[in-house]
């Protein structure tokens, strides 16, 4: 990870991803599907549309190059020989913290989806409605017919997604930014108002609560407008993260409801493969998008990427890079904190940047006393920087994951909890599988330092665990319980 600021800024380009939100059959809409790479897709999935949701874009888990590890770059010449080792260590240190920082939102999203699936029956009912993108029904007479239908559905869906991605890349290449922004705006509008309206309605029905139009209007209006402000404009970071998680969950729920069984699993598998190809192949659309954005040195629509911000201030004074401490809890310590020297005081409100005391003291041993005090930080901030600081800087310096990834992970776990006969075993197994996949992906990211698809590994593990648990583990556990045999 030793990515430098340049990389981070370069990597802002994530591919945009707008997923078409699946539309209930009554309202065909355009599915905007853009993939966001590396940073994540966005939820814009809302864009109507069918299922395209892609979120997939597994975009390289955001973290990719965006990992923010500011490696101690300008080191005094005397420690050059240890630079390699320290870079490695930093890489892994940052990687570990980033993984954990992503666990929480991914887990939250999945929890919301599973909780809804379990309690609100609407999302598991088969109303016979389908998305226009999956026209073939799955309640057919023969298994062969069903298999064929699901393959056709998946093919249609993936074609839609490919087309949308290409459209997006073209739009981006020809600088039609307004179109893309408008598209994303409409998608998030749809998600925040319409889908949350449906969600609320179903929740009230489930809990048998009376609700009047006036209160409902106030709630939806507030939720929607504040959501739009937080996502597309400025708002508190936590609130923005919460909104992104909520819209990902909403999108995943829509997918779970409107995609028939076999189609859903097939789509997950195919999308992972597509993600892999689109991001890693030289001619892949997402890769082209990332490279174009890097060439132009522009950030891509940060509105639809989940980011948690953490900036690591490692060394200072002689670097020309702007370093900022953007830990949320940093404020109370303007006056006081003398961090670091020997064991870094990790006062509860101070983020020690992931440096454990032992690491810091080792660092200090090699480099001389390391001071990341507020004063020095401020000094650094005032240093002229080689690269003008991007104004949404804190967006770029955190770990980023595409919203599409959230959506597909949650969709997998939600489907597992909805459909599996093994119930909680299967759900938990899928959950663990996805988290493991995420860890591995982030590890690869730290090693390769370029945009990587976040979907393939996790989805692959998730699918394997789902089918294995459902078909092998569950009967086994049942038999054991039946015979009162505890292992």
């Amino acid at each position, binding site marked *: 990870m030793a990515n430098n600021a340049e990389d981070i800024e370069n990597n802002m380009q994530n591919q945009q991803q707008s997923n078409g939100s699946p539309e209930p059959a009554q309202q065909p809409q355009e599915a905007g599907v853009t993939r966001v790479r590396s940073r994540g897709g966005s939820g814009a999935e809302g864009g109507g549309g069918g299922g395209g949701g892609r979120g997939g874009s597994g975009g390289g888990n955001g973290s990719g190059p965006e990992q923010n590890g500011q490696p101690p770059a300008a080191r005094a010449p005397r420690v050059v020989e240890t630079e390699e080792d320290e870079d490695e260590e930093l890489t892994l240190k940052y990687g570990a913290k980033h993984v954990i920082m992503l666990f929480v939102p991914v887990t939250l999203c999945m929890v919301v989806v599973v909780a809804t699936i379990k309690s609100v029956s609407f999302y598991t009912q088969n109303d016979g409605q389908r998305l226009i993108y999956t026209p073939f029904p799955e309640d057919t007479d023969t298994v062969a017919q069903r298999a064929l239908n699901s393959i056709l559905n998946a093919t249609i869906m993936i074609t839609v997604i490919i087309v949308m991605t290409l459209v997006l890349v073209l739009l981006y290449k020809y600088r039609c930014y307004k179109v893309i922004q408008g598209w994303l705006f409409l998608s998030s509008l749809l998600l925040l108002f319409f889908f949350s309206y449906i969600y609320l*309605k179903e929740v*009230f*029905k489930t809990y*048998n*609560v*009376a*609700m*009047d*139009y*006036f*209160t*409902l209007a*106030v709630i939806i*209006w*507030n*939720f929607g*407008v*504040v959501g739009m*402000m937080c996502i597309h404009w*400025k*708002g*508190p*970071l936590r*609130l*923005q993260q919460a909104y992104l998680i909520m819209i990902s969950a909403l999108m995943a729920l829509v997918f779970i409801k409107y995609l028939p069984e076999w189609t859903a699993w097939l789509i997950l598998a195919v999308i992972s493969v597509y993600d892999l190809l689109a991001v890693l192949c030289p001619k892949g659309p997402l890769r082209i998008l990332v490279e174009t954005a890097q060439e132009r040195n522009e950030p891509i629509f940060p509105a639809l990427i989940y980011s948690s*911000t953490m900036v690591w201030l490692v060394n200072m004074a002689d670097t020309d890079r702007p370093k*900022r401490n*953007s830990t*949320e809890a*940093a*404020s*109370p310590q303007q006056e006081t904190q003398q961090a670091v020297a020997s064991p870094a005081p990790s006062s509860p409100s101070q983020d020690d940047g992931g440096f454990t005391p032992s690491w810091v003291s080792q660092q200090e041993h090699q480099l001389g006393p390391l001071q990341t005090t507020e004063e020095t930080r401020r000094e650094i901030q005032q240093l002229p920087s080689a690269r003008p600081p991007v104004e*949404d*800087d*804190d967006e770029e310096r955190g770990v980023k994951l595409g919203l599409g990834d959230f959506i597909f992970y949650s969709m997998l776990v939600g489907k597992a909890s909805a459909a599996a006969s093994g119930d909680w075993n299967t759900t938990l197994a899928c959950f663990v599988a996805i988290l493991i996949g995420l860890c591995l992906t982030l590890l690869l990211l730290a090693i390769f330092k370029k945009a990587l698809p976040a979907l393939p590994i996790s989805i692959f593990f998730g699918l394997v665990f789902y089918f294995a648990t459902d078909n092998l583990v569950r009967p086994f556990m049942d038999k054991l319980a039946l015979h009162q045999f505890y292992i």
Partner: protein
Amino acid sequence: MNLERLPNEEKLSLCRKYYLGGFAFLPFLWLVNVVWFFREAFVKPAYTEQLQIKTYVKRSALGLLLWVAVLTTWITIFQHFRAEWGEVGDYLSFTIPLGIP
């Protein structure tokens, strides 16, 4: 968005926009304003714009309380009397619970 990194004028401007936005039937926006700028307004050591930010935060809190009072009253009335209002009650209802009221 991290408030720490903004210059004070921008903080004031943001607070002001949130305050004004809340007048469009958005008590949630006022709530966000209060929570987000609370520390800025009351905990931080004084700076020039802080007085104005304090005013905005206080007014947002006031507006929020007002809205909460109104909404609570209305919800209480509605939930209590909904069944008795007959048709009007149904007309006002978005979801109607099943069973005997």
